[in-house]
């Protein structure tokens, strides 16, 4: 569905991505993991066409390169920053964004209603976003990425700063997208989220791909019996198959050096 082939991107003297290659299959939930500065945001920015690679290529298979109009129709993005208008209502936000994809007024209204229902904001449809909690804004941010029924959705840390209830609701939405055969690219710092949601996970660091496989394969290959490090996550997220977990794999591959 989405292919990175030997993609390199530098900013000045900093090489953000170094011959990065991977392929995301249609309909899968693909986790893109890495410590701060690993190249996740650069990868997403390249995938949506905000940046162009210095070398290598990126392609949405059967559609074209990300900056092309057809690719934009196929892509939906939920940025880490809450890219919604605080002084518009939830419904107005969604109708505005869907209007930019050429929908008629009737289609916009129907789609906004459907999405607000899906993210649990239907009873707050006509309230201004300024009065929403962080979790509600995150859900609306995600809904805004879905207005045009994209074939591939990129979620950049969609659960940052939300409470467990909203996080759970966001998980349900992601699972719903997978059920609809929508391809999802999911970046997060929470290994448990990736472990619960992702069909496959890519771990990158210093712009390079360190590992790419299903969670269970990664755990079996890279010492999934290691101790847990993060103890502050909710109990519902700490369960892991086979006693190992993705966090141990992540630390094994990227090291324990702080990356502030």
């Amino acid at each position, binding site marked *: 569905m989405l292919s990175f082939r030997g993609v390199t991107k530098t900013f000045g003297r900093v090489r953000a991505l170094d011959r990065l290659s991977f392929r995301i299959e249609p309909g899968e939930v693909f986790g893109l993991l890495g410590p701060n500065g690993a190249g996740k945001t650069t990868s997403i920015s390249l995938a949506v066409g905000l*940046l162009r690679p210095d070398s290598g290529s990126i392609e949405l298979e059967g559609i074209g390169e990300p900056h092309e109009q057809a690719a934009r129709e196929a892509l939906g993005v939920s940025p880490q920053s809450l890219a919604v208008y605080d002084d518009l209502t939830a419904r107005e936000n969604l109708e505005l964004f869907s209007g930019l994809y050429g929908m008629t007024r009737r289609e916009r209204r129907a789609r906004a209603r459907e999405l607000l229902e899906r993210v649990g904001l239907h009873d707050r449809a006509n309230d201004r976003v300024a009065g929403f909690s962080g979790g509600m804004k995150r859900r609306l941010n995600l809904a805004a990425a879905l207005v045009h029924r994209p074939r591939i959705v990129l979620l950049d840390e969609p659960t940052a700063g939300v409470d467990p209830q909203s996080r759970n609701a966001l998980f349900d939405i992601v699972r719903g997208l997978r059920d609809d055969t929508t391809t999802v690219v999911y970046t997060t710092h929470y290994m448990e989220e990736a472990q619960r949601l992702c069909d496959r996970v890519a771990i990158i660091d210093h712009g390079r791909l360190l590992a790419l496989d299903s969670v269970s394969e990664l755990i079996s290959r890279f010492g999934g019996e290691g101790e847990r490090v993060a103890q502050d996550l909710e109990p519902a997220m700490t369960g892991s198959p086979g006693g190992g977990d993705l966090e141990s794999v992540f630390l094994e591959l990227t090291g324990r050096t702080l990356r502030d």
Partner: protein
Amino acid sequence: MRATRSILLLALKDVRLLLRDRLGAFFTFAFPVLYALLFGLMFSGTGEGSGTVGIALVDLDRTDGSRAFVERLADSEALDVTLVADSDAGRELVRRGKLSALLVLPEGFGDPATTLVRGERVRLEGVVDPSRKAEAAILKGTLSGLVFEHIGDSLRDPDRARAVIAESRAALSEGAPPAVAAAVDRMLSGVEGLLDEGEAVGLGAADGPIDLAIGELTSGERTVPVTAYALTFPQGAAWGLMACALGSSLSLVGERSRGTLVRLSLAPIARWQILAGKALSCFVISLVMLAVLVGVAHLPVFGVRAESYMLLAVASVCACAAFVGVMMLVASFGKTVAAVEGFGRAVLLVLALVGGAAVPVVFMPVWMRTAAGVSPFRWVIEAMDGAIWRGFGVQEMLLPCGVLLAIGLVGFVGGSLMFRFSRVMGD
């Protein structure tokens, strides 16, 4: 069709956001009206004490002549006289900023008419507040006028004039050099002769030396007089346009900071459409602001009527176009909202002041009047003045409107090329 619809949607979004921002809406729509109202009141001379210079006055001479002159000063509409006991008291009032100047009639001031006929200069002393140079200049002119008016009144009364001549002859005999005394005596004899002849032919006592008839400039078939508000509403419009342009600039940069610009950039619309949407909203908001301003100016209390509404509409459209360009340029200078706000306010404030949005250009030094040519405010005010009360024709409107359109075009194209879209998510 889809491109047009996207631009309209984006512009509508900005208008909606502005209307929901009470403070932003106030500065966009109400502030220009308040500005025009305030300055109109100042320039119209309405209200007690407007247009007068406050002075402290000390009469150290305390003669009939000086008292008569004090009365004349007190009666003057141009002065607001406060009598004080001594110079120190007067200086203190000026130092504290309560009054603009201290005026002292020194000992020996006497009657200005006698002093003048004796061939001496009328001497006044005083100090002025250095921060009120304009009022000091008005005071000097007013005093000169009052002195001559006082002397004129004295000499037009034949009996008083003869008394003045007699006093002068007496003074001359007390110490003037014989040659000077003889020359002045001959002059005084001539004046006496004139007084006799004047009485013989019946010259009125009230006739002054100058017959001045000054009316206000009118143009065309104007039936409504030009009020002070006709002068200040274009200035209010200039401030309103500044608020619109700055508000739209901040809105654009704010979208980049918040991340909504990334979302817009990822939609299947071109970047020029995003900027066109912002430009359209800025243009529409500016135009509505001007319409509100013109509507308020038409209220009976302001009584502003335009010489040509067609040309006023043209001037308004050109002014809005110019400030769309200004908006785009300002937005392109800086990465953050704070940087653009600081830069925008500083630059636009200077341009507004230089361009006559606060003090009319005619009151400025020559070099500043020349420099005003680079300010869009100057051309906005000229175009609107031209349409409202100067009675400009189409040809005369070509220059200001052409300059405004050029500013708009260059500003928008240049600003669009320089404006930095987000290149990275979260950038």
